[in-house]
């Protein structure tokens, strides 16, 4: 589904991604781990099309389409969803209104009729239940005054509404207590199908207790330096990142 080849990206003059290679198939969950500053969030942002980053070389294909050629909104419409590490506040715009606009924009792109109010409400109720979110939260201005947990839960609700092909969760566990973490993870698990894929970007192994990855990749200095299964995550939890850093640094010297 997703194929990243030799991806390099920089912000201003600083090269952050230095040759990422990654293949993600439908039905898979991939975890991207790594120490702070290794380029995890940059990778998520580059895939979503944030303009602060400049891709200097490499290719990214989603189902055979060149993702890097598409505008951020078209990437979203093609099925890329980014759950933000720091969800943005939009005063005066309720999540309901925001989602209604988003869902219909995506439908229009796909040549579908806009959704009428009744069907939209029905869909919303269904998804609300799935991710255990309260309607009162959705009526409030988007992310304004939300707690950390509410913001992340709201991201997962949006993901449920948009039913993405590829969901990228950027440090979704940061700032969550254990109960909120469980609810968010449950939501993500329920949304998993044989046709979609998830990339979980995280610093800690904790989230992976709930969202079990098929593959774990360790990012360091802009490259994937080690890949494995969930056991790798356990090992990292136990030993920290230093041994991987040492290994990787030894190779590059």
């Amino acid at each position, binding site marked *: 589904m997703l194929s990243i080849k030799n991806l390099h990206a920089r912000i201003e003059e600083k090269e952050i991604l230095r040759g990422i290679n990654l293949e993600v198939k439908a039905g898979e969950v991939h975890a991207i781990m790594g120490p702070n500053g290794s380029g995890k969030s940059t990778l998520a942002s580059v895939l979503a099309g944030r303009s602060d980053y400049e891709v200097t070389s490499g290719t990214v294909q989603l189902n055979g389409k060149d993702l890097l050629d598409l505008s951020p909104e078209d990437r979203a419409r093609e099925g890329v969803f980014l759950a933000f590490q720091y969800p943005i506040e*939009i005063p005066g715009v309720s999540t309901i209104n925001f989602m209604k606009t988003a869902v219909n924009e995506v439908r229009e792109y796909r040549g579908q009729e806009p959704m009428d109010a009744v069907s939209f409400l029905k869909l919303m109720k269904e998804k609300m239940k799935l991710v255990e979110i309260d309607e009162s939260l959705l009526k409030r*201005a988007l992310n304004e005054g939300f707690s950390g947990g509410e913001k992340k839960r709201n991201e997962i609700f949006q993901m449920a509404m948009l039913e993405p092909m590829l969901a990228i969760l950027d440090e979704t566990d940061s700032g969550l207590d254990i109960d909120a973490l469980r609810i968010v993870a449950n939501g993500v698990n329920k949304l998993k199908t044989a046709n979609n894929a998830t990339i979980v970007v995280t610093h800690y192994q904790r989230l992976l207790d709930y969202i079990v990855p098929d593959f774990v990749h360790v990012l360091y200095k802009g490259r994937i330096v080690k890949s494995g299964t969930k056991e790798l995550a356990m090992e990292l939890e136990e030993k920290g990142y230093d041994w991987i850093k040492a290994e990787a640094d030894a190779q590059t010297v």
Partner: protein
Amino acid sequence: MSDSNKILEDITSSEYKWGFVTDIENDSLPKGLSEDTVRFISAKKNEPEWLLEWRLDAFRKWLAMDEPEWSNVKFPKIDFQDIIYYSAPKQKVTLDSLDDIDPELRATFEKLGISLDEQKRMTGVAVDAVIDSVSITTTFKGKLSELGIIFCSMSEAVQEHPELVRKYLGSVVPVTDNYYAALNSAVFSDGSFCYIPKGVRSPMELSTYFRINAANTGQFERTLLIADEGGYVSYLEGCTAPMRDENQLHAAVVELVAMERAEIKYSTVQNWYPGDKNGVGGILNFVTKRGICAGDYAKISWTQVETGSAITWKYPSCILKGDNSIGEFYSVAVTNNYQQADTGTKMIHIGKNTKSRIVSKGISAGKSHNSYRGLVKIMKRAEGARNYSQCDSLLMGDQCGAHTFPYIEVDNNTATVEHEATTSKIGEDQIFYCNQRGIATEKAVALIVNGYCKEVLKQLPMEFAVEAQKLLAISLEGSVG
């Protein structure tokens, strides 16, 4: 210029959609202003002697006054001799029925989305349509008069209800209040008049639609609304003008009088021609709007959505004379390209426990300048008065300006006055967040702007709010509707 600014620039350069000219024969005065002009207008309207004298007095006082220069707007000096002060579409002087309206005129208003045909109107809004200097028709007059509500053009009110006009005209905005109010008092040509009797709640929205059509013409309308004890009225005002290369002057006066426990809700969607992208042409909009809560527990609420005009200079105000009376001001002012707006309000607290609330949302784009100017004055006698003001500015791009000039004068130490102000930019982060959910940048800006203005827009009557939302989107974005 960064990418995001370029995007904003692209989508903020839009076209004015109401800029057509209606080809009708006009009955106009030549350009110029003198006592004779004033006499001509008065005679044309068959006015009583006292009104002519009132006008002449205003004219003489105006001659001795100077144009104000304190506002934060710049424009070429107006040549008051280069303006036509009276222009009326030629048609039968009195209309027997709506069918007698010139089909061209009817078509004009249809094109503006205003049906003058009472039967076809579903929304239950009574309309007074004013084109250039005269009122063309007022709908639903019959139905309203059953309740004792008077809703007609000012010219008609002068003929039919001279005692009311004489009593209240100039009672809220005195002739010498300011330069443009004095000019208006001398040469006003028409406008709307409304009287709500004791204890009557108007069952429908009343509305005036102003249209400038003729070239080189100034529009000076005068609106007077009186709600007697316990009366209620919601009043809407809309305006557009053709695209012309020269500036056109619009100097209106609106006076509101609310008696004990009466409530007046006055909403404006101002969409005069703003000039082109290079700042050529556009309406110079110098308006004096003021209401008095004359009785206890009276309430006046101003809501305005200002998107048009090259220059906007207006401060809808409330004099809170009655004890426990309430004044409100909700405003969205959008400036784009080279538009300039200096707008705000004055809340004068005289009575005890009077309350006022100011919510102002300025949006500046292009190379425009947008100023909020407001005065909150608590007089000595105003025990327990309260004011809350919130003035927010939103900047789009990096070539526009937002300014805030709040004045607070408190002469009673039991008063509570709160002022909050914020300035923000539409963040790239916000736009990217919307993009990431599949929402294109244009629509994202519309969504963010409407969210920003929500507190004001929700004050508007339903149909108007929808219109205003569309107008905001169009003013800022071209194709998004």
